[in-house]
């Protein structure tokens, strides 16, 4: 009955906190029996860890990745006790940004940080964290978000009314009371006093390795052993494992490991294609995951997977981590000039979402995601929504492109626009009625394509009925 992340006595607390918090939700994770933290007063003991919330799906305690849009895609957040692996983009620009968001979120919530790096001093990494947009900066934030929104996403959509049902990315506004997931201003540094108030541990590989030390013959590279021992030491000493109860308020340990697997870590997977060499890293990941599973901690790892020669090895690494997110930036690629992607800086691939306490995982229906680093914010949007789907299925070719150009004569609200819509609707209606006359059973599928149904009159009840396609325009 415990969550994955915790063990022993700790698990009871988390489980009950979860149960009380998710009582109203429809979830199969129900705690039987009385609440353990059973006092009548409102606050369950453990939800009060700042910056965490229980998952409505599997009862797992979640922390934010520091990027609310990404949290949403990962099923609410990153589960405590799991590893988030970021496959770096080619020049490690955006992945290091995600890395910093994750750490900054920890600082804002007062979590303990553990930063490990082989090429940059952790103290410097902390100095470069982005500044949080807290309540006093909220107005500024709103402007930033809504100025960049295309107008048609704000007004009620009339023509593409089917799209009202589509999931919206990046539209949750920061509520001052919610302490889960903050927005950050990438153009500013985090205030010095926040860093000073935070508790962090740095692991800088060159400082930790002493060449004279005699190495116990073991299966791992020396740097990895040192890092594992360092992490285990902190987890044990500060009581992040359930077996050694924390004296004061329970807290979360956020671990960030930068450029894992790069040659600087003393690993040779980037250099050789030899099958043997990768096992250092996989063993490291396995032991690390074992450590995390039994402690109140979450880990982000960025890995230069494009450097790894042996592609099979990436599959092994993916299998051994929990959540895997790939970043693919357009810098230097021919997609940079592709008009389809002109609004984005790259693509974000959600490669794996863990199945925790569940047969199914919280997979998002939306697969084609692009990211953009705006002046201050990192946003994730649905690429295909804007162009391809509309263009292929709803509008005649080119029409959605005209809609996008809000300043042109064809833009939203212009005379041409409405004339076009009228004629378009008339055509669509004529087409639809022709079909209905011939009583061809057609069915609108979720992806927007019209498919032939197997037999006549096979309309099903359920969701589909609520969102009929072109042909089912309600009377």
């Amino acid at each position, binding site marked *: 009955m415990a969550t994955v992340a915790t063990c022993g006595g700790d698990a009871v607390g988390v489980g009950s906190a979860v149960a009380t918090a998710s009582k109203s939700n429809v979830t199969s994770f129900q705690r039987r029996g009385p609440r353990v933290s059973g006092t009548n007063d409102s606050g369950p003991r453990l939800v009060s860890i700042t910056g965490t919330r229980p998952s409505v799906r599997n009862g797992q305690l979640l922390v934010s990745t520091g990027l609310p849009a990404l949290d949403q895609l990962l099923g609410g957040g990153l589960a405590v006790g799991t590893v988030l692996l970021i496959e770096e983009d080619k020049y490690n620009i955006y992945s290091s940004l995600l890395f910093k968001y994750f750490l900054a979120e920890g600082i804002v919530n007062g979590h303990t940080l553990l930063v490990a790096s082989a090429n940059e001093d952790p103290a410097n990494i902390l100095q470069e964290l982005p500044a949080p947009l807290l309540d006093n900066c909220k107005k500024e934030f709103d402007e930033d978000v809504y100025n960049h929104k295309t107008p048609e996403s704000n007004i009620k959509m009339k023509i593409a009314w089917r799209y009202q049902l589509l999931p919206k990315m990046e539209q949750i506004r920061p509520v001052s009371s919610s302490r889960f997931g903050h927005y950050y201003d990438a153009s500013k540094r985090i205030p010095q006093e926040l860093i000073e108030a935070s508790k962090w541990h740095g692991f800088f590989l060159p400082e930790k390795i002493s060449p004279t030390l005699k190495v116990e013959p073991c299966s791992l590279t020396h740097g990895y052993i040192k890092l594992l021992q360092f992490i285990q030491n902190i987890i044990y000493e500060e009581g992040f494992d359930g077996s050694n109860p924390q004296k004061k308020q329970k807290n979360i340990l956020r671990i960030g490991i930068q450029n894992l697997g790069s040659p600087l870590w003393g690993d040779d997977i980037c250099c050789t294609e030899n099958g043997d060499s990768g*096992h250092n890293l996989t063993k490291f990941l396995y032991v690390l995951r*074992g450590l995390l*599973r039994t402690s109140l901690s979450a880990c982000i790892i960025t890995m230069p997977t494009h450097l790894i020669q042996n592609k099979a090895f990436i599959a092994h690494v993916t299998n051994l981590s929990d959540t895997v997110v790939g970043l693919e930036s357009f810098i230097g690629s021919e997609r940079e000039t592709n008009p389809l992607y002109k609004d984005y800086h790259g693509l974000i691939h959600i490669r794996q979402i863990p199945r925790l*306490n569940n*047969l199914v995982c919280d997979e998002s229906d939306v697969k084609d995601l692009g990211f953009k680093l705006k002046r201050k914010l990192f946003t994730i949007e649905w690429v295909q929504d804007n162009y391809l789907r509309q263009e292929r299925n709803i509008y005649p070719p080119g029409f959605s492109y005209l809609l996008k150009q809000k300043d042109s004569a064809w833009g939203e609200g212009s005379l041409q626009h409405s004339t076009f819509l009228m004629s378009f609707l008339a055509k669509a209606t004529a087409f639809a009625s022709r079909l209905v006359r011939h009583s061809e059973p057609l069915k609108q599928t979720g992806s927007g394509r019209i498919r032939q149904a197997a037999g006549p009159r*096979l309309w*099903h009840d359920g969701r589909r009925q609520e969102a009929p396609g072109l042909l089912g325009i309600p009377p």
Partner: protein
Amino acid sequence: MFPELNNLLNTTPDRAEQGKLTLLCDAKTDGSFLVHHFLSFYLKANCKVCFVALIQSFSHYNIVGQKLGVNLTMARERGQLVFLEGLKSAVDVFFQAQEKPHPLQFLREASAGNLKPLFEFVRVALKPVDSGAAGWTYPVLLVDDLSVLLSLGLGAVAVLDFIHYCRATLCWELKGNVVVLVHDSGDVEDEENDILLNGLSHQSHLILRAEGLATGFCRDVHGQLRILWRRPSQSTSQRDQSLTYQYKIQDRSVSFFAKGMSPAVL
């Protein structure tokens, strides 16, 4: 345990075949639901189960098991289930020097190790006891999953040897069953994994292969399951018959349907 899968395999916990090796395999999707199925199936069949869980923690299997109607904690207390939690053991092996060899000793060894300690663990766990108090029907070994062993640096031959030993002891000597999960690497060249997969496909009696849809992600169909029987001596119509079904995983069960016959499409 998913009743629909039992129907497809034409089996129930009461009359399951013995002495078989079942290979579970997943390509471009997650086949762990099959592991959960067989775990709950054999626990309900009153077998003595040794579960080598390398990929998830005990509480994960326990919570999913409860959804499928078995209680792993109780089974473990009763002695019906012997659970080897790979993640936890890895930490123990790595940070504490052990006197006696741990089942996952190879994690510590510099050279490519072998799986003798793990086999020894399985053998001791499933050794029939004469006391007679526990009336378990037959022993079952379940491994989730073998690909992890390859990832951790073992050679395919070492893993195949391990399975061979397990088969000889369990399937032949004790008339029990072995169920293992292996990932199929798909398009990626992964020599070791291919050796393991082909080697196991060659010797297993039943292959369940879960595949992601070739057309990509779909909300209403999670993948397709191929069932391949490899029965040695039966009428030709029965031999090597292969069946393909599509499936959708729900909260506590999995529904199977013929290809293209998803309720969402019809």
